[in-house]
Structure formats: structure tokens, C-alpha cells
């Protein structure tokens, strides 16, 4: 069969570390190819080489059977290969159309220095319409949800008329509804003749959308299968090398002597534009309890987390932690009271890419005596601590003394969770804790959260992954338009019922599903 894009013994080394080891990859014209594998398996690295972003150490790339060499993404795009990265690269202060056309501005015919923005907007509108998206070309990217930003990334490539579209974990940032819509879009793109390579950790999506699958592990290809000849369980086993539980083992164990850990009362706040984004939110979390927040992304969950983690100020309402009023406290005070925070945006708020693994491993606890027993950092203690986190969470690293930028997406997330859990907090605020994490590690992280709960910890779990919230949480509040529209017991509620609430339907008692 005709192979559109393929590699022969493609290898990439970072120093002594081999991230891709003699990869033979091939995608057929017009198919959707899924690539799966654990965090750090080398998926992104491989794609970056195909996209000209990384130079292979050895091996070759073939496009339509012809040997090609891309020195930069620009070469790749010129040859019809486009890529949307795991972490977006948009300019937040630019509008939608400016971002789509960045670097490809349409200039005024008479005055070549001036950008013809009327024409630009028009073309963008046409493009958006052609692919059936729903976007306002004038909106600033900073005001858009992640899902919408991703659409722009894809449109950017479509505008440049690529034949092969590489998508690195496109769905890990989307809400379930957005994912469904996205998968339909992918099939449409395929119908339009595009060849698509998609990296994902969600096997359901692989089964749903792909034609064939390549499985990677520790820098090598360990399997190539046709999608209709395999199953989720088989893929999972291939990836991890053992049987993986695809459902969470949660006995909703009841801890004795529960007391209220966190009490949120009438919490309200506005965004910069003055719009009420969190509206009169009240709930409480007890010790030994996981309180889940479900909801369609953009209904105030992010802001609620920001309020509770000291990154935003409330206009009214109160937050009481262990009987103490902590409303609008600073982050450092919240942390020292025993609140662990796994933020939504890992590279903006969880980690500093340009600092070392060690420096990141003590973020949030730099004042701790453990790391500076005599008022001065103890390099040895910090290194030991960092090594412990890496070992316990099996974080795959290339260079211990290097910066966090070397970590693959999932491993970066693991580092944050490891760090926050290590402090044995009393309350853990976990926002999208398993976003972009491989199935083996998801199982592990879920286990950690449940163990934490069983030992009496309180957890606030915010996730756009409905199944995650429903299987982990003991109680679930559903957010809609900034408020909690209803509270349900996940053991007695179906996804459909919650889905209705998420869409703003009247509370459960009246819903007859």
C-alpha cells in the first residue's frame, strides 16, 4: 500500500539519552493514524522530527517515497506537513484572525506595508465556515477557552493548506463534548482527503477514530496494529506491559470521625471585565472525602480553583479552612496551612520550564526547614528530595541536572503531583490532575488520590473528564454559569443525569432521566 510519510531507522538522542531508537513509522495516504505510548515514550519527539522541529541524530524520512530533509517547520509546512503542538503557541494578545494569519499576512495592494485586515478577516471567516467551526475572528485569543484556542491552531495549519496534519494530544485539553465534536471534525478532515497523525492517551478515541495504531515504549516501536483488529485492553497491555485497570477501584470507604475541612460560603467574584464568573458558590468538604466539581469547561471552575488557591480575590463570600477564615489569603499562607495545589495550567502555574528539576521540586516549599536546615539551601537534601519524587512517580527524565523543559507533557504533570502529594497536605486542590497522563500513570495517580482520601485527607477534584469525577468523588457539585446548579451522589447518578445538569437543566429532583 502507498505510504504517504514514513521513516527508516529514525533516531534521536539528547546527549546520552536515546529518546527515539531506530523508529520505522509509516502512515498511509488519507488514513488516521494513532500513536500511543506511555509518558516519555518518545511520541512528541518523533513528531517533532517529522515536522522539522528537531533534527534527527540518524535515519531518514520519506515523503511519498521520496527521501526528504526538513531543516525547520517551515520546510515541513512547505511540503504539506502541519503540526499542532501539545502546548499551544498562540499570541494571547492577538485576535483570532491575526493568529491564524501570523506570518502570512495579506498586505494592501497599493501600500505593501499595510496589512489588509478587512481581507484577512474575510478569508478567516470563509475558512472557519468551510470547516464548520464557530469562532469570532475579532475575539482576542486570551479570552478564549482552551478548546477554542486549539481550533485556531488547527485552522492555522488548514489555512496553509497542509495534506498531513499532526496533532499532539489534541483532546487532552478538551471537554467531553468538545472531544466528540473534535472527533467528528477529524473524520470530516479525513473525508476531505487529509492524512492525520494523532497522539492520544485515550484509547476510546483511538478505537473511535483511527484506522491503524502504532504503539511506542521507551523510545521504540513495540507494535503496529489495525484498529479493527485490536481492543482497548490489548492496546493498554501493549503500552504498559501489564494488565491495566481501565476503571477506577474505589470502594468509597468511609473514614471515621469526619469533620468539616473546608467550608465555602456564598463565594462570588468577577473577572477583569466585571462579569460575575463565580456566583454564590457554597459547598463543604469533609476529612476523608473527595469532592468533585463537574461542568462544561468555562462555567467558573477555573476561577473557583483560582479563588481557593489564592490566585484571585473574591468580592463576597467566605472560605473557612479547619475553622479558620482564609478568605482571600495569599498563596504562601494557604500553602503553609497545609493546602496542596495542582493547578490547571502546568507550565504557567505549576512549573517553571527554565529552572532545574531540583528547583521545581521544591517550589512552594522553599521556606521549609527541610530544604534549608540552617537557613541556607542544602543542595544534598534538595537533590535527594527530587530523586525521591522521580523514583516514586517513575518520572522519565533525560538529565537530572537539566531543566524541566526536557520533560514530556505527562511527566511534567507527574512531577507536580508528586511534589504536592509529598508535602502530605490536609487539603489537596487538584485541577485536571491526569490531563495528558498515560493510562498506567492515571491508574497510579487515581490510586494516590484515593489513598490520600482513605488516610483522612480532603480533596477538591476539578476535572472536565466526567468519568474521572464520577468514579473518584464521593460527592459531586455541578457548575453551570458560575454557580453550583446541583449536588449529586455519583454512586446513584448516571452520566446522563449529570450531563443534563451540566447543560443547565433543572436540578435532579425534577429531571426524569
Amino acid at each position, binding site marked *: 500500500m502507498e505510504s504517504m510519510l514514513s521513516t527508516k531507522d529514525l533516531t534521536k538522542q539528547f546527549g546520552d539519552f536515546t529518546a527515539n531508537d531506530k523508529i520505522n513509522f509509516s502512515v498511509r495516504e488519507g488514513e488516521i493514524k494513532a500513536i500511543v505510548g506511555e509518558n516519555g515514550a518518545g511520541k512528541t519527539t518523533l513528531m517533532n522530527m517529522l515536522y522539522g522541529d528537531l533534527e534527527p541524530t540518524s535515519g531518514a524520512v520519506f515523503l511519498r517515497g521520496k527521501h526528504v530533509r526538513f531543516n*525547520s*517547520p*517551515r*520546510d515541513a*509546512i*512547505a*511540503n*504539506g506537513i502541519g503540526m499542532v503542538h501539545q502546548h499551544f503557541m498562540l499570541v494571547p494578545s492577538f485576535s483570532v484572525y491575526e493568529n491564524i494569519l*501570523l*506570518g*502570512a*499576512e495579506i498586505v494592501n495592494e497599493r501600500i505593501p506595508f499595510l496589512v489588509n485586515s478587512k481581507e484577512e478577516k474575510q478569508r478567516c471567516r470563509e475558512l472557519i465556515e468551510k470547516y464548520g467551526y464557530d469562532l469570532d475572528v475579532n475575539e482576542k485569543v486570551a479570552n478564549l477557552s482552551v478548546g477554542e484556542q486549539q481550533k485556531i491552531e488547527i485552522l492555522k495549519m488548514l489555512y*496553509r*493548506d*497542509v495534506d498531513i496534519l499532526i496533532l499532539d494530544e489534541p483532546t487532552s485539553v478538551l471537554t467531553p463534548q468538545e472531544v466528540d465534536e473534535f472527533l467528528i471534525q477529524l473524520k470530516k478532515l479525513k473525508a476531505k482527503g487529509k492524512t492525520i497523525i494523532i497522539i492520544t492517551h485515550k484509547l476510546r478515541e483511538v478505537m473511535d477514530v483511527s484506522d491503524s495504531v502504532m504503539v511506542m515504549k521507551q523510545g521504540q516501536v513495540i507494535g503496529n496494529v489495525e484498529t479493527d483488529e485490536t481492543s482497548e485492553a490489548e492496546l493498554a497491555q501493549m503500552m504498559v506491559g501489564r494488565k491495566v485497570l481501565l476503571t477506577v477501584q474505589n470502594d468509597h470507604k468511609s473514614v471515621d470521625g469526619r469533620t468539616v475541612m473546608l467550608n465555602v460560603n456564598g463565594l462570588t467574584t468577577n473577572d477583569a471585565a466585571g462579569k460575575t464568573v463565580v456566583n454564590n458558590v457554597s459547598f463543604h468538604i469533609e476529612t476523608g472525602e473527595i469532592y468533585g466539581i463537574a461542568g462544561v469547561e468555562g462555567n467558573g471552575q477555573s476561577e473557583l480553583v483560582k479563588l481557593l*488557591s*489564592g*490566585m484571585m480575590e473574591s468580592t463576597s463570600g467566605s472560605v473557612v479552612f479547619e475553622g479558620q477564615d482564609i478568605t482571600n489569603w*495569599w*498563596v*504562601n499562607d*494557604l*500553602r*503553609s496551612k497545609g493546602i496542596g*495545589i495542582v*493547578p490547571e495550567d502546568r507550565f*504557567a*502555574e*505549576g*512549573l*517553571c*520550564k*527554565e*529552572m532545574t528539576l531540583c*528547583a521545581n521540586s521544591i*517550589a*512552594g516549599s*522553599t*521556606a521549609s526547614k527541610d530544604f*534549608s536546615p540552617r*537557613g*541556607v*539551601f542544602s543542595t544534598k537534601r534538595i537533590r535527594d528530595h527530587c530523586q525521591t519524587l522521580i523514583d516514586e512517580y517513575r518520572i522519565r527524565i533525560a*538529565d537530572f*541536572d*537539566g531543566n524541566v523543559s526536557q520533560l514530556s507533557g505527562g511527566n511534567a504533570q507527574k512531577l507536580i503531583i508528586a511534589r504536592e502529594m509529598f508535602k502530605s497536605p490536609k487539603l489537596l486542590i487538584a485541577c485536571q490532575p491526569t490531563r495528558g497522563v498515560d493510562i498506567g500513570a492515571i491508574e497510579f495517580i487515581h490510586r494516590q488520590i484515593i489513598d490520600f482520601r482513605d488516610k483522612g485527607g480532603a480533596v477538591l477534584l476539578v476535572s472536565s473528564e466526567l468519568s474521572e469525577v464520577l468514579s473518584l468523588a464521593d460527592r459531586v457539585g455541578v457548575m453551570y454559569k458560575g454557580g453550583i446548579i446541583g449536588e449529586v451522589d455519583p454512586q446513584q447518578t448516571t452520566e446522563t443525569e449529570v450531563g443534563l445538569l451540566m447543560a443547565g437543566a433543572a436540578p435532579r429532583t425534577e429531571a426524569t432521566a
Partner: protein
Amino acid sequence: MNRFNLVKLANSLLPVAFALLIGAGIMVGMGHNPLEAYGIMFGRSLFTVRGLTNTLHMASPLILAGLAIAVTFRANLFNMGVEGQLLFGGFMAGIVGAYIQMSSPLLHKLLAFLAAAAAGMLFALLPALLRAFLRVDEMVVTLTLNYVMMTILEYLASGPFRNQGAGYVSTNTIRETAMFSRIGNTRLTPFFIISVIIFLLMWFLQKKTRFGYTVEAIGKNPQFSEATGLRVRRNIVKLMLISGALAGIAGAGHMMSHEFNYTLSFSGNPGIGWDGMLISLLGGHSPLGVLIAAVFYSSLKTGADNINLYTGIPKEIVAIIQGLIILFLSIQLIEQRFGPVKRWRAKRQMKEAERGSVE
């Protein structure tokens, strides 16, 4: 890792190398032997006892001024007001030195240093608050305030505090108890040792303490810093104050070890504060880099006199070299802060890609 360090080193060495090369070209053009000139310049300012001690003496305030700027640069703050803070500090030390009578030389100097540090901090406070709470660009504010400060000091020195006996604008000479004495028969004074101690302190803080961590984190990712509980605003104010204090101390030391009264050319031309900026850039904003760059730069300054003395080359050649270093470094600075080249390249790449796909 290593490659990264090499790039950093090249960033510092290349501007210097280019400047020296062009300087050599000019000398050849004028019919002089550049090798001989450079030999004399650096040979005499670094490899003779007299020259070296001179160089180190001149380097003392430069080290502090360089550190004052470096500490803010690392946090991605730009205290361009070091010159003004340094002048203010020097002036205050001059007043304390001249008008306050104290029997203990040690206490007198200490008091002068304290007054200078306070002056520097005071003068850094306004831009710090503006930046931390109203997000006013501190670069513009501090830059402007330099001129305000120069004007105020000019007024004070030529009016209320003028030394009537002097034939030019100057304050009274400080008392002997406020003067640093020379070490042996070199020009070095204990102020050099103070500078080195402060350098060690800054190096230690940077490397080994929460303070250094905070500075680095704020410089690299303010949002991350805030989210992990480093109080960004508070630390911005703190950093600017530290920077102001260092600048003030540099001025005081210069006053008590070199100038002894405040004149309109107190800090020379370009001022020590401006030199400090250059030194910080040359030193890659690391304390050790600043130390080395300060000594190098000082040797260039003292070398200028030697070039005049021992060769027929006009000493202005050194000013040209200084100017060239500044030019090359500014290009680097602009790129660092605003990244026009990077942006332009990215844009061009996309553009060419676009063109490629149209074909």
C-alpha cells in the same frame, strides 16, 4: 548544559572581541600597531603591581554598581536608575562626611554608608511601588528619575551646600574621619575589600538561599512564582530597594575613597551607574561575571591613561572601544527584552512556508 554555558560566555566575549577588533582596525588605519597598543594597555593595567592596584581601586564602585543592576536584571526588572541612586548616595555620604563630626572613623564611615544606602533605597522606592502595584514600566521611570536627581543635586551642590572657598561647584570636602586611607603605598583602600565582601554576600545569596531562588523564579516565570507562593510584588519592591542600596553604597564608597567632595563630575563620564549597566550585561548578570567584567572594564579605563603616556595613540581610542562595546551590548539587550530579531525570524519563517505552500 555545557552548550548553554558556552553560548552565555560567547554572548559576553563577542561584543568585546568585536569592539577590540574594530578598535584595532582604526589604529591600523591611523598607522599604529594595535598589538603594541593593547599590550601596553592591558599589560600595564593588569600585570604591574601599580597598574593592577589602580585598576582594582577603580573597580570597587563598579563592582557594586554592576551588582545593583544585575540583581534586578535577573528578576527581569530593569533598574536604570542606578546612576541617580549612586549620585544621591555619594552626595549624602559627602554631607554626612563633611557636616557631622564624629570621633570614631569607623562609626563615621558606617553612618555615611547608612545614609547613602537609605538615599539609594528611597530613590528606588517610587519606581518600585509604581511597578509593583500599578504596573508602570520601571525602566522608563528610573531612567527619567536620573535626570531629576542630577538636577536636584546640581542645585544643592551649587546652592545650599556649596563650598564657598572652591572656584568651582563643589561641596565641602569630607572630614578625615570619613576618608578611607590607602593600603600600603597603593591606591587601594578598604573600600575595595568592602566591595568584595558585598560581592561574596550577593553570590552566596544568589546561589544558596531562598532569595536567589525567588529572584530567578520571578525573572523566568512570574505567574509560576505567584502560584507557588512567592510574593511577586513584595519581592519586586524588595529587589529594587536592594538595588538602590547597593547603588547608594557604591556612591558612598566612591566619595570616601576617591572623590572626597561632590562635584558635577562626581561619577565621571559616562557615570559609574551607566558603566554598571554595561558591566552587568558583560557579566551575564551573574555575580561572578560582574566581578570579572568590572575588573576588565576598569582596566580599560586605567589603560587609557597608559596608552596616552606610552604610545602616540590618542586616548580617545579607548572611548571608541567603550562605545563599541556599549553598542554591541545594547543590541543584545534590546533583543533580550523585546526580541525583535526572534520575532522577525519567526514571522519570516511562517511567511516563507506560506509562499512555499502556494507554489
